């Protein structure tokens, strides 16, 4: 086959949450530049199964960059070397024949490894439960456009709402901080009229939940923005800080 390459993969293997793990080396053979990183793993796993070995556990769902399930740290970078790209959308043309690639799970106390490259991201769900919602009156659906929203606010809210909750920000942060995730969630609701009733409570509650889950604090490194597959800006973190400080002096009902 012409144009294919062989890679050496060094993959984190861990049988289960409590047990120790270690790196193991694998050969990925005849890798096409047109296949995705996950497809390469699929074919490697097929081979492992044929050889009677335990396949490598990794998470994936949509495989089109919108669900946030895929989660591999590739050569030290969450989702690999391409900017604004999820692992499932990372294509092998960005790698060289003969290259050694180190693949690890997200590393954070709040994201314990369950197996191999799969970690438990339930801490994000619990942060969302602490405030990532709006209250709506029940009844008929409101008329479209009955609540006017300025173009700038709508754009900024939509940019934040792009967050797919993959956790790459945590994985990339030297402090394993979840500030970019929380900032995106708090900001997109704080910018919209629908988010106003819970605005202060949301900021307080989500930051509190974030700290309780054991994420680190923000040092403004900027690694999260660089790793984010949706390129969510660190300026949302500053906005979260402002929302949190503002909530200190806002009476919450």
């Amino acid at each position, binding site marked *: 086959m012409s144009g294919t390459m062989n890679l050496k993969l060094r993959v984190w293997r861990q049988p289960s949450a409590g047990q120790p793990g270690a790196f193991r080396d694998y050969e990925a053979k005849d890798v096409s530049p047109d296949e995705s990183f996950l497809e390469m793993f699929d074919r490697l796993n097929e081979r492992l199964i044929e050889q009677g070995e335990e396949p490598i556990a990794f998470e994936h769902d949509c495989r089109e960059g919108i669900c946030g399930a895929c989660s591999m740290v590739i050569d030290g970078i969450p989702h690999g070397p391409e900017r604004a790209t999820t692992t499932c959308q990372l294509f092998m043309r960005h790698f060289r024949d003969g290259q050694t690639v180190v693949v690890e799970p997200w590393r954070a106390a709040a994201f314990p490894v369950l197996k191999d490259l799969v970690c438990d991201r339930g801490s994000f769900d619990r942060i969302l439960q602490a*405030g990532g919602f709006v209250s709506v009156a029940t009844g008929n659906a409101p008329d479209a456009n009955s609540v006017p929203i300025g173009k700038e606010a709508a754009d900024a809210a939509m940019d934040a709402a792009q967050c797919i909750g993959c956790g790459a920000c945590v994985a990339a942060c030297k402090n394993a901080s979840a500030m970019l995730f929380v900032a995106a969630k708090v900001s997109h609701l704080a910018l919209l009229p629908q988010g106003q009733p819970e605005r202060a409570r949301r900021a307080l*509650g989500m930051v509190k939940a974030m700290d309780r889950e054991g994420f680190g604090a923000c*040092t403004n490194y900027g690694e999260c923005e660089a*790793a984010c597959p949706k390129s969510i800006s660190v300026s*949302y973190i500053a906005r979260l800080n402002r929302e*949190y400080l503002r909530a200190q002096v806002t009476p919450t009902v």
Partner: protein
Amino acid sequence: MTPDQSPERPCLLAAARGFVGSSVGAKALMALSGLGLIGFLVVHMGGNLQMHLGPEPMNAYAKALKGQPLVLWPARLGLLGMFLLHVGLAFHLNAKNAKARPIAYASDRAVASTWASRHMLLTGALVLAFLGYHLAHFTLGLTHADHFALVDAQGRHDVYAMVVHGFRSPVVAGSYVLAMFVLALHLSHGFGSLWRSLGTSSPALVDALRKAGIAVALAITLGFATVPIGVVAGTIGREVPRLDAGGPPVTELGAAPGGREAGPVRVAGGVR
């Protein structure tokens, strides 16, 4: 409603503890204390630059400062408070951040962060170590008691001569310049970062402040460094004779009417 959103406001003390205990609140306090310390550094550097003007302005300035205990002591206490808060939170946050990533990556890459941002604790701790030495040297007079005891012709603490003698040692001058370089690294990230910790989110403003931060860091540290460099280069303190040179006395004890009640006063050639 989840328990996080209990409607009553907690009492003020509990609220303060919750604020400091939260990562966002702690960072806001680090930013405020850092800003306060930067303010102090600017004033302090302004004072130091008078070394370039000669002994008279420098010693008069030092005496004027000492002559205002009602300004000096609250300022010193405020400074100490900001410093303790900043350092305490630095270690608190660092422990928390280390706990948040108990297992390190086998292959760890920095894509966007600067060296300075990743080594704030190191540069901060070096600044702390330098500060201990600096206070022992010039504020408490422990390292060079003879320089500290100097008195000028008007009976004032001869700050000018003290500094000149201190920096005539290339090792001392070099360590001050080096410490200022470390401080520049700390501030090159710190100044840009603090505004974001306090909620400045406009990307244009943040970028301008980040650039301003590098300029502020350079201005402060170069400003400080001109004094030891000036002494070594001989542009400062040419009028101060070497302590061991046996030249005319640096200071005249007794020439000062009602001079300071200092201990032994060093003049050229010995202690009187």
